[in-house]
């Protein structure tokens, strides 16, 4: 069972690294959005650093969303999903392996690259540190919520749009607490730990609900 889990995790990481994989794509998309917004707002550094965490969080949310429609669809199209069902491991474990691989190739690079992108929106050093921390614990929630949508739309041809409409509302709580934790770190009345702990809780709940939900969606999706 653990062997199956590991084999699938490694396969998905390999696929993400190959040509046409989603590995670097999300990161570049993230960079694009973060660079576009200062152009739209104009050279007001104070304004930028004030809304910087919000910009980074929205960019991270969109970057997570952009490759998500292929999470199960690619396997559905080439028949791999049938192969995955034949494993000794339960479907939940298979979903978990795929989601973790997806997060390692999108969410984790985003969080790690945030200090660099924080420069573009004039974040203070504490702000950057807080952004890394919030994205690190918050992006798993986005990925797990998105996985349910990805499983539901796996067999639809234009699933990407429907996926976004389906899952975006459920990502709002994560966005709220992610941004408020990042803001709390650079000032404000709320201590950093309060929204940060809620963010962690959201990720943990999403991990359970998302895994079970996505597996159920795949099972009934025939």
């Amino acid at each position, binding site marked *: 069972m653990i*062997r199956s889990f590991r084999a699938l995790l490694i396969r998905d990481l390999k696929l993400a690294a190959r040509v046409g994989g989603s590995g670097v794509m999300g990161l570049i998309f993230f960079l694009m959005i973060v660079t576009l917004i200062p152009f739209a707002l104009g050279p007001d550094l104070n304004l930028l650093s004030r809304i910087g965490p919000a910009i980074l969080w929205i960019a991270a949310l969109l970057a997570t969303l952009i490759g998500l429609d292929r999470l199960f669809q690619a396997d559905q199209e080439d028949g791999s999903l049938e*192969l995955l069902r034949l494993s000794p491991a339960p479907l939940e474990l298979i979903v978990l392996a795929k989601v973790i691989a997806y997060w390692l190739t999108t969410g984790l690079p985003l969080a790690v690259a945030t200090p660099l992108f924080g420069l573009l929106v004039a974040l203070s050093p504490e702000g950057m540190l807080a952004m890394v921390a919030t994205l690190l614990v918050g992006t798993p929630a986005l990925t797990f919520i998105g996985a349910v949508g990805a499983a539901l739309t796996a067999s639809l041809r234009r699933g990407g749009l429907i996926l976004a409409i389906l899952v975006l509302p459920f990502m709002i709580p994560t966005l709220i607490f992610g941004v408020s934790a990042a803001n709390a770190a650079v000032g404000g009345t709320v201590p950093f730990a309060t929204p940060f702990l809620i963010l962690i809780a959201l990720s943990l709940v999403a991990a359970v609900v998302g895994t079970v939900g996505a597996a159920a969606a795949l099972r009934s999706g025939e």
Partner: protein
Amino acid sequence: MGQGLRLSVNNLACERGGRRIFEGVSFTLLPGEALVITGRNGAGKSTLLELLAGRLHPAGGKVLWEGAGERSLPECLHYVGHRDALKSALTAQENLDFAQDFLGNPALSAREALEAVGLVHAARLPVGYLSAGQRHRVALARLLVAYRPLWLLDEPTSALDVASQETLRELLEDHRAKGGMIAATTHAPLFLSEPKEIRIERSAAPSAAAGEWQ
């Protein structure tokens, strides 16, 4: 390996999209036996295999899998269908290594399996560069890297040249000789020795919906 296994299918019926595809399909399969499933296009041959693979649920009847202990039917079978479940970006070797690790019960190594289907020279090529027939042979090589007693094959000879069809026949007979079971849908003869045969017909009295293409 494989002794005491028994697959029995009783009066199986299937519905898809509210239409009865087939009903009353019954057969049993014992170690060493092969079942050839024939029927017109759209009669439900592939659907029957998908039912056995556990991807679809029967509308009636039963699939019984005995003698395998606590291992469920999907854990004891290989399924090779029209979609070959190969990742184009990975090499043939990587695809087979993954299948071996993922499915468990390792048998031949990826290289030996590719040798058996005559594709050892393509081991390091991404599967996306291979022709349809070669891809299909890589998918068939998956049967060999992990041991599973029951092989479900959907049109196994499609896209194969004459020499590869003969190789496939030998692989199938070899699997039967070791106590394996095979269920294959086909239009072309497989030249297996003494296979069981069933023919699937679309169930009589199709629903009288207007615009039915019959």
